[in-house]
């Protein structure tokens, strides 16, 4: 190994000291965040899987599971939504069901699908109105949404 001059060694030591101090100061935010997350870990690890999903996804997880439990995997459904992010979350759980997202329920579309799922902010009145439609049969209401079976003509 080539021998360094003493002044270069001293300069390097100062450089290392400054770099480390700057790194610790600038990295304070991430260190703080990690310590906070580490302290939360025992509580998080003690949750059951469904509870962990609810921590991340909120109520949409429970509604998506309700759709999964009330419809077969090869079902075709209309998904009424007013929040695109919640739609995307629901879709993650609904595959492989064929889903047609919709902002409004159109009766002429009912014949193409087996079910109608609705997840709307303050949707209670909307769900009641849908339930009054004789083409729809309420299967589940709860977790912020409602699921209807679509009655086919002649059934």
């Amino acid at each position, binding site marked *: 190994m080539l021998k*360094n001059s003493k002044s270069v060694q001293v300069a390097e030591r100062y450089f290392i000291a400054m770099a480390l101090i700057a790194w610790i*100061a600038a990295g304070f935010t*991430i260190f703080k*965040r990690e310590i906070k997350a580490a302290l939360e870990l025992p509580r998080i690890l003690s949750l059951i899987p469904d509870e962990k999903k609810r921590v*991340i996804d909120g109520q949409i997880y429970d509604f998506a599971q309700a759709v999964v439990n009330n419809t077969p995997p090869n079902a075709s459904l209309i998904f009424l939504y007013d929040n695109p992010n919640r739609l*995307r979350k629901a879709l993650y759980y609904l595959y492989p069901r064929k889903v047609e997202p919709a902002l409004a329920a159109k009766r002429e579309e009912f014949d193409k699908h087996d079910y109608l799922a609705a997840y709307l902010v303050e949707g209670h009145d909307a769900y009641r109105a849908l339930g009054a439609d004789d083409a729809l049969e309420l299967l589940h209401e709860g977790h912020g949404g409602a699921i209807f079976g679509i009655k086919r003509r002649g059934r």
Partner: protein
Amino acid sequence: MGTFGLFLAIALVNVAGMAIGSFFGLSFRERLLFAWPIGAGVVSLQMFFYSLASIPFSPAVIGWPWIGFTIALLAWRIAAFFSNATRGGAWSFTFSTRYAASRSVALSPLETALVLVIVFQVVFSLMNLVALPVQGYDTWVIWFLKAKAFFIDSGVSAAFLSDPVYSNANPGAYEYPILVPLLVSAGYVFMGYVDDRLVKIFFWLYYLNLLGAFYYFVRPFSTRLVALILCAMLATVPRIMEQAAFGGAGYADMPLAVYFLAATGFGFRFFQEGKKNDFLLSALFLSIGAWTKSEGITFLASVLIIMSAYAVYTRRREGIKIVIPAVVIAVLFVLPWRLYVHTLPKLSFTMVSELSVSTVLSNMERLPFILKVIVPKLFTANKYHITWALYAVLTLWGFRSFTRREYAFLQAALWIQLSFYIFVYVITPFDLKPHIETSFDRLTIHLLPIAFLCMAVCWKDIFAQGDARRVEVLTP
């Protein structure tokens, strides 16, 4: 098979990676170090080929070929060993290493502290990753949704990829390369069900590999203290931790960073020592990077062109003999998926849909705005701590290092790729500021390890560390 199946999947990917690594002159320890990223690339490619041949995924179908291949490889090596021994020749079954063994020296207090920081980061990453399911938007609309679909469909199906509702949440997402979804899908196949929490351990393995590979490349020319300082800094970059431990886990950016690091690390070696295997290893990691994310394609093109031009210019015909197998590797990883995507219906425009000379010229006025937005981000402490500031200081202070071709190669690779990212912002059809805000931080993750490599070289040149002691890289 549950959790046991998950560990079986991890073991299989590593076995596949070690088997492929043996063709590139890597020592046993080197093969172990790079087993995960190589194995992820080849196993996911294998699964894609199975899909093309309509072979449904199953643990046996994925695993047995690699087990058989490894057994055959071992048998061949043992036969070669005994054949050489009976002929009275020298042992050919040597574990070559780049490093001569040396007496190990105890860690200083500062080195011990740095090792503890790295260990804490690694342990914290593992615990936090598997504590909760996936959280990031792109994970549940792109990467993990595709993984789930591939698992349920038991293959990559055109029906899913052509579905505009599921497959194209972000415009152009259906065209993204699929290493990460197939790798995650392999985890589900071996487990027997979808568990998007436990499978995140795959991303922890990438994080582990990022740090291990970085130390491996830097240690030969740096003192142990400097290598540990830079490794600890890399381990704590907030943008990296976002994907290594927090809500960004599951994105493909950190895996891509590993491939970029390995590609430039071996490319650096090639420029230094001129060994064919380093060129081919660089090409392998470039190719797997292109199979991981679309950004890998531009990196593959630019870095392979630079390395090939150097090889041919300095070695003429011998250089061409090195370049040809590298191009074959690249074609193997890139072409099948690009051809497959070409057969799918166009679902949406993409970030480069409006690429044309007139668009480029008319949009150049965006450049000052783009730079005004991205430069302050690079010096934001809660995104990058002191990374880019330190990079700027060392690059300017160590400007003489540019006379070294291996260092110039690293900087060229970094800046050409950054230029591509800025170019996409110039031509993007999307709203510019939101596009930058939602993507730039992730794109820089790919470049961070290369920036740290550059810093290591400059540091060494500035403080005249000379030829560092060559010690076993995995011992203190």
